[in-house]
């Protein structure tokens, strides 16, 4: 949308739009890579979460560069606004930042092996995409995207007509997730003041066994 705005504003037209699209792409790419390396390399989980925000904003920039306005907004609101905040909340709540990197390595060569595996996976993806065509397939199966009209309207119409059943299933999924979160984080035992002394002893004996 930024590129489109600049394009409409520029009297010279195509050159400036082209340059601005590239600029947005490069800035977004730099943010994405900086944030991704930060998440992988930094020791403190709080710093990792903040680096994740940089990556998510970079991805939102790339969405804007490709005229996915609604998804860019949702990306920032849902990811940077909700998911990362929940991450930070859990980190602060549990005090994980103080206990990082304690204990011996479980597997001796975990890091070099992981590095090799990651690089091999990356090279595989790039080679696979290099030997095949980048884009193949039927265009506009679920409806045209690039024509005139608002991005939000097209996306909304698609979700509420063609993708109505998946949409309702995501609603059910969210409810299930909320219920499961409550069940998982609920404390099982009632408060000690509500129990008699024998019940308390019973509870203490039961607590030592793994459930």
């Amino acid at each position: 949308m930024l590129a489109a705005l600049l394009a409409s504003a520029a009297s010279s037209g195509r050159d400036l739009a082209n340059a601005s699209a590239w600029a947005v792409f490069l800035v977004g790419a730099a943010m994405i890579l900086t944030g991704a390396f930060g998440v992988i390399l930094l020791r403190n989980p709080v710093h990792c979460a903040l680096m994740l925000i940089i990556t998510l904003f970079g991805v939102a920039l790339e969405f804007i560069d490709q005229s996915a306005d609604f998804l860019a907004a949702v990306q920032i609101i849902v990811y940077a606004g909700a998911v990362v905040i929940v991450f930070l909340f859990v980190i602060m709540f549990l005090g994980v930042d103080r206990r990082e990197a304690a204990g011996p390595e479980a597997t001796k060569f975990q890091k070099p092996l992981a590095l090799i595996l990651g690089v091999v996976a990356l090279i595989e993806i790039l080679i696979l995409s290099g030997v095949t065509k980048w884009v193949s397939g039927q265009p506009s199966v679920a409806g045209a995207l690039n024509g005139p009209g608002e991005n939000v309207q097209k996306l909304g119409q698609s979700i509420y007509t063609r993708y109505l059943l998946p949409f309702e299933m995501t609603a059910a999924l969210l409810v299930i997730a909320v219920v499961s979160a409550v069940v998982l984080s609920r404390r099982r035992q009632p408060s000690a003041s509500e129990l008699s002394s024998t019940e308390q002893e019973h509870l203490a004996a039961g607590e030592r066994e793994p459930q």
Partner: protein
Amino acid sequence: MTVPGAWYLVLAAVLFGLGATGLLIRRNVLVMFMCVELMLNAVNLTFVTFARLLNDVGGQASVFFVLVVAAAEVVVGLAIIVAMFRRRAAATADDIHALKG
């Protein structure tokens, strides 16, 4: 909108590779979770790119659903991590067996 789609796809592939590497390298479960988010974002970027290249609104609808699933996944995953902390004050991937029933 003049950046070729291949650039976005390469960027998404690199981001996915970085996320996978981080998932394998790190032992802190929270950071491993963040690396999963990186991989999900890489896939979202490819979805949006293909939606533009193929002129298909289905790609963007898929990103919408991936966002919802990612949010649900974070809710459940963090609840599991909190439960893990209740049993044992550590958050490495090796401590998950503390949740054995």
